[in-house]
């Protein structure tokens, strides 16, 4: 167990929905429902799922940017959900995040130097000339130039802004990075640059990644292991190659068959999934996937499935296995 850098055990996060005259809690959005995950040191774990499945909420709960309602998160053996705010703040040096939208994540009124240098200032790690030096070093490591130091975010293209976001996130020498859809807003030619940068940094700085994306091709390119999420639950997880070669859950299969393959000779399989993701407010009873599952039985409609261990780190949440 000791080689797990980060471990989530039965994490739960519901968001209350208030309504009525007294704005009482009427219902809950079950964004993350008993999700467990482990991330080994040096590994890149991919988390994939459609919009609204709870990927981002789960990622942020792992960093305690969102307080979980139940469950624990162990970082190097320490349960961070029990840390005091002061202890948590110190802990954050080790775990950082890169956001999806590079426009929204950078303060438009701050220069690049201040954006990248802010974490160093907050944690009292550098100041004055030393700070500038460290910022320049960080900028060159992500492929930005020294002359960009006093520019503002709006002067940069999307790809460059994402580089700024990455430079900021590695400023404190973290051991863990949460990459929340870091390339979704970018064009393919730029996406490739950023993906390669992310992989180079991992090797150079000995980083561990949780990479969240809805794009299976991207997830496959970066990840060692992949978790598939559907409506607040992990439905399948396996090593990257294994998951693509040998998917067991019907949702994973449907997801794989639905990707348009960029090769005109390989036509898409005809396992189209009907309908759309149901609301997480009142998720279907039993297995949450049963209304869309082609193989659903009566048992799926009433009983929640248990995680089945197929060996070799392959887990599936399904009655049919």
């Amino acid at each position, binding site marked *: 167990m000791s080689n797990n850098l980060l471990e989530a055990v039965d994490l739960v996060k519901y968001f209350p929905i208030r309504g009525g005259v007294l704005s009482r809690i009427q219902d809950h959005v079950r964004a993350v429902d008993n999700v467990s995950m482990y991330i080994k040191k040096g590994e890149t774990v991919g988390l994939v799922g459609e919009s609204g499945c709870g990927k981002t909420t789960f990622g942020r709960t792992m960093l305690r940017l969102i307080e979980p309602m139940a469950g624990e998160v162990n970082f190097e053996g320490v349960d961070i959900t029990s840390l005091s705010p002061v202890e948590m703040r110190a802990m954050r040096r080790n775990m950082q995040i890169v956001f999806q939208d590079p426009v929204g994540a950078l303060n438009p009124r701050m220069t690049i130097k201040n954006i990248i240098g802010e974490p160093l200032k907050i944690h009292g790690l550098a100041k004055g000339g030393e700070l500038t030096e460290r910022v320049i070093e960080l900028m060159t490591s992500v492929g930005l130039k020294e002359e960009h130091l006093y520019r503002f975010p709006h002067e940069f293209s999307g790809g460059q802004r994402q580089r700024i976001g990455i430079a900021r996130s590695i400023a404190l020498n973290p051991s863990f990075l949460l990459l929340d859809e870091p390339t979704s807003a970018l064009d393919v*030619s730029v996406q490739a640059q950023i993906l390669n940068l992310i992989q180079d940094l991992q090797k150079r700085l000995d980083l561990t990644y949780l990479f969240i994306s809805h794009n299976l091709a991207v997830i496959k390119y970066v990840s060692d292991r992949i978790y598939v999420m559907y409506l607040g639950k992990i439905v399948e997880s396996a090593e990257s190659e294994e998951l693509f070669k040998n998917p067991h859950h019907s949702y994973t299969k449907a997801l794989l068959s639905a990707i348009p393959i960029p090769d005109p000779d390989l036509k898409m399989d005809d396992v189209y999934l009907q309908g759309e993701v149901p609301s997480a407010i009142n998720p279907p009873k039993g297995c949450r996937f049963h209304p869309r599952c082609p193989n659903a039985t009566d048992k799926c409609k009433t009983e929640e499935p248990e995680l089945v261990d197929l060996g070799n780190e392959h887990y599936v949440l399904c009655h049919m296995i």
Partner: protein
Amino acid sequence: MSEPLLSVKNLKTYFYTYEGVVKALEGVNFKIDKNQIIGLVGETACGKSVTALSIMGLIQDPGKIIDGEIFFDGVNLLKNSKDEMRQIRGKKIAMIFQEPMTSINPMFTIGNQIAEIIMLHEKVGKKEAMGKALEMLKSVKMSDPEEVLKKYPHEMSGGMRQRAMIAMALSCHPQLLIADEPTTFLDVTVQAQILKLMKELAQEIGASVLMITHDMGVVAQMCDEVNVMYAGLVIESAKTREIFHNPKHPYTTGLMKAVPKIVKTNVKLDSIPGTVPNLITPPSGCRFHPRCSHVMDICKEAIPKAVEITPGHRVSCFLYSRRSDDV
């Protein structure tokens, strides 16, 4: 070969902004034959959508079409009056937009909006138009179409709205359907449904489709022919299979290598260095030359002309043409 349904020749659309003239389209050429699905691919801001809007006659101030011809069914659309364009738009050429929420009126029910188009173009009453609207909703496989007729856009999911958009676009049986990134905002499982539906319906009513997308996967699965755009120009066009197996232009080759693949195992992605140029002061000569790995002196000076290297495969690149051809 019969006449193509649509042929765009040397189309130039500029936008006159405070910062300067944005040369969004700098002589775009391509054609669409009947019953074909033609792809228009390229990265953000390469002029895909401006091309679509130019065809539709929807370029607004400060934009202006300054040169070129757009022949549709033998008529030059750019010579048409506003009234004539209004007759064509929605009836003969219809368009599906990227974001269904912003292109559907939130104040009217889906039924009303589809019926409005039918009443405008075919001389029928409200009742008959509503009946046709219902039929259209059925044909896009909307579940519970009678209910949807009375629904407002905000009551529907993204996939349902896009289905409603398709129903609206096809309600007058257009000859040409322009689909501008129709599935970009949808999840993959929904995208697969919508793409399949579009392909089937286009075949059924005998419409050609201009599929605008940045997703090479969508192109490979949907299109018969592909036009690759870069910085306001079509730089390569060929049959889909030819583009994927035998890309010629360095930009197309780069684009192919930059797409992460599901099928192949981890090969390092080749990225194209740099970013798409600013179109107010585009690079001289070939607009791709600052990012091109095969750049030659001539590329910085002159704009390469399109050459047909094999039947149907046209490339605009000096690697395949000589300067003497165009000077």
